[in-house]
């Protein structure tokens, strides 16, 4: 199995990378774990592969109460980093629930956020997919849609977002630094992942030539004692989420002062559960509040023929995640 031919070049520095990446039909190579799969499947056919993997953008550091991840930091380096383990355990859990050790040793955090959907209709060129081939139709909508989204879908696409890390980051105040030849800008995670257009052709708001250079997670350490990334999947390891829940609470004087909840596997983007959060605030961290949060999470779900099971699964996953963090660590 092999994809189309391309020219390879190694970026000498960031400006060189941005100049080369801004050319027509160029793509950046970081960890390569998604790009090579897409290329081998004929889903990516770049003419120029610009290798950025050697640029000095892999630092992991803390700036006050902000965790700063260089975009080229490997997943395994982030999850093994003492500061991340201590202050952001949910990020470690999300990463360790992702892929395999081999893939985590290669994959970058920036690339992880930009990975393409695992919808089988997208990944197989023999099947109809608007995301891959706008106008071709969505085979999943009336086909094998067990994996499909419950929320946020565009008319022409029911795919879900695949990243676990993005779900954890969606629960926190996360800022993405993006560079291009035009300059630097900072996006919230919501700005990186807007609700999809009708065909959902792109998975993020980034344009060709844009590069994520850093991820900043602000003031999240206060949630460290009560946070979890709960991932439900079809096998115990090395599998994408059917449903996942990132949950973080801050309890003050026996009442929930702050709640952060996001879910994966149910929408084309990491799905913040603001209704569930609101249902928890000011209440005791006990069953009635958790059940209310679970009910709020499924409000407005729009299932297809084969994914209705995800509705109770999501509700129960929210409840279980909250049950497991209530006592704190």
């Amino acid at each position, binding site marked *: *199995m092999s994809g189309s*031919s391309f020219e*390879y070049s190694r970026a000498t520095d960031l400006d060189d990378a941005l100049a080369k990446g801004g050319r027509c039909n160029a793509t950046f190579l970081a960890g390569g774990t998604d790009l090579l799969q897409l290329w081998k499947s004929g889903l990516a056919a770049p003419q120029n592969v610009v290798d950025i993997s050697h640029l000095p953008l892999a630092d992991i550091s803390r700036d006050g109460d902000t965790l700063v991840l260089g975009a080229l930091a490997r997943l395994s380096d982030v999850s093994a980093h003492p500061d991340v383990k201590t202050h952001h355990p949910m990020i470690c859990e999300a990463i360790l629930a992702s892929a*395999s050790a*081999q893939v985590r040793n290669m994959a970058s955090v920036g690339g992880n956020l930009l990975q393409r959907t695992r919808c089988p209709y997208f990944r197989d060129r023999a099947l109809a997919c608007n995301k891959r081939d706008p106008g071709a139709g969505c085979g999943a909508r009336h086909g094998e849609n067990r994996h499909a989204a419950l929320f946020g879908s565009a008319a022409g696409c029911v795919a879900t977002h695949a990243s676990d890390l993005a779900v954890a980051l969606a629960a926190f105040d996360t800022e993405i630094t993006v560079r291009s030849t035009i300059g630097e800008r900072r996006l919230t995670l919501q700005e990186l992942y807007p609700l999809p257009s009708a065909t959902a052709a792109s998975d993020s708001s980034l344009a060709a030539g844009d590069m994520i250079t850093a991820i900043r997670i602000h003031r999240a350490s206060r949630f460290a004692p009560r946070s979890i990334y709960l991932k439900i999947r079809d096998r115990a390891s090395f599998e994408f989420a059917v449903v996942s829940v990132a949950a973080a609470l801050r309890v003050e004087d026996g009442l929930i002062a702050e709640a952060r909840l996001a879910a994966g596997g149910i929408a084309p983007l990491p799905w913040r559960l603001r209704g569930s959060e609101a249902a928890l605030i000011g209440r005791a961290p006990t069953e009635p509040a958790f059940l209310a949060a679970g009910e709020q999470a499924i409000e407005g779900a729009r299932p297809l023929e084969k994914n209705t099971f995800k509705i109770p699964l999501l509700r129960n996953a929210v409840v279980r995640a909250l049950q497991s963090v209530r006592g704190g660590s």
Partner: protein
Amino acid sequence: MSTHTNTDAAGSRNAGNPIVEQRIALAMTINGERYDLKVMPTATLLDVIRDELGLTGAKKGCDMGGCGACTVLVAGRRIASCLALAASFSEADVTTIEGVGSADRLHPMQAAFMRHDALQCGYCTPGQILSAIALLSENPRSIEEIREGMSGNLCRCGAYTNIIAAIAEVAGR
């Protein structure tokens, strides 16, 4: 230390090919030997190791990063060499199964795999052993962590129980 080139191993395979394609010059250390290579931009590390250098221990199973048969170590860390673009691995220090132990002096992990009968057909075994060696450096604290840590290596014969037992013995768990 001698230096090898890939024309040593594979000859000029493309000499008759009229299409001029980019070749990228790079140096790599593989199993302690220095190699000066010229690789296609599209070649994976696995392609180079197997087809250019004739080191066929690493296997092309799924070729999509899912089975672990292509596992090699780079600077001691396990990766899926089928998802690694060779050109990106200039100056890398690569270990394949050919660089682990020898017939009369097995690596402790190889010896444990034999004692525990941790294979049937053997196709996945090079990847399993390299992955297991890298896992030891990650300090797994329990059988559960060993099982989780080995989830990137599939065994279609289903020798998992014995594979985990072999690794647990070497890990002292």
